[in-house]
């Protein structure tokens, strides 16, 4: 077995970690929302596989036409910093991983790929990101089909699974000195995301909070 295959297989396992059910709950809710909005299955699947960024998907579902495109693109502009942060670990053929770069696999990868042998980051991420991508679409399919049968009691957990998951991740990050400034910067800048329009608010908070954290770390 080659090292690359072993890395890919480890990535597949990592992609099925605790973040998987949290992300799948979000996609399940998206599938149900598409069904309720009377969108066809093909559109719902294309949104999951081609956009693969929940804020953008939700904006496209709710806002028709060019305003929807602009809103979705701004909301998913975080793909750029995510890809830049991951790029050095993916090697010269890192572009192969581009369709799978999203917050959920990124949050797992950025804790793992720096410790891998150079050259194994790409197969690892193709495994992790590919599995996340496929599981998201599968969960959305399930949500689309069982939308009417979802028990009301399950709704709160579905709506907040991803939020609780990321809250736990940043809770752990607060204990890591290298990651702490970015978390605190994001928390302090979060009111911007509440005050500004939803499509740009989160991006503005991330840019300002993250840049402040980066400047603070450079000064030290």
């Amino acid at each position: 077995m080659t090292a690359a295959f072993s890395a890919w297989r480890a990535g597949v396992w990592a992609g099925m970690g605790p973040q998987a059910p949290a992300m799948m709950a979000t996609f399940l809710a998206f599938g149900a929302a598409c069904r309720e909005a009377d969108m066809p299955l093909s559109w719902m699947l294309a949104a999951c596989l081609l956009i693969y960024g929940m804020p953008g998907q939700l904006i496209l579902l709710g806002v028709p036409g060019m305003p929807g495109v602009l809103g979705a693109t701004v909301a998913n502009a975080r793909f750029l910093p995510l890809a830049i942060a991951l790029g050095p670990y993916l090697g010269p053929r890192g572009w192969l991983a581009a369709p799978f770069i999203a917050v959920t696999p990124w949050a797992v990868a950025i804790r793992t790929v720096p410790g891998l042998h150079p050259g194994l980051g790409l197969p690892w991420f193709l495994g992790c990101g590919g599995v996340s991508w496929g599981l998201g679409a599968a969960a959305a399919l399930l949500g689309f089909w069982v939308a009417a049968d979802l028990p009301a009691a399950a709704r709160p957990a579905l709506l907040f699974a991803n939020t609780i998951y990321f809250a736990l991740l940043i809770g752990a990050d607060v204990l890591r000195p290298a990651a702490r400034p970015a978390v605190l910067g994001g928390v302090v800048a979060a009111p911007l995301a509440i005050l500004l329009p939803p499509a740009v608010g989160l991006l503005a908070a991330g840019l300002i909070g993250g840049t402040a954290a980066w400047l603070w770390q450079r000064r030290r």
Partner: protein
Amino acid sequence: MSPDWTPLLLAAALGLSLRLAGVLLARRLRADHPMVRWAAAVAGATIAAFVVVALVAPPPAVAAAVPPVARAAGVLAGLAAQWRFGLLGGLVAGLGVLSLVAAYAAKP
């Protein structure tokens, strides 16, 4: 309903372009390059801001289904359980407590 596919395909192309631009821009940079560190800080801060917004000011329909006390109880229970049982234990405990408190709060 027959949707207009153009917005979806356009948004998908723009999203893929952002991802490709990031990877191609960074592939020759070292992991400790200031630009890579800046991007990681922005990404981390964006996730932290997302969590705060989702907990404090979710969309009205979500806020109605899960009251603030249930959100707070879920996160606190999750963080406490994560300390002892790891990430998966924290997730299960957080969602369990959130669901229970939301169900209790919804009782007339």
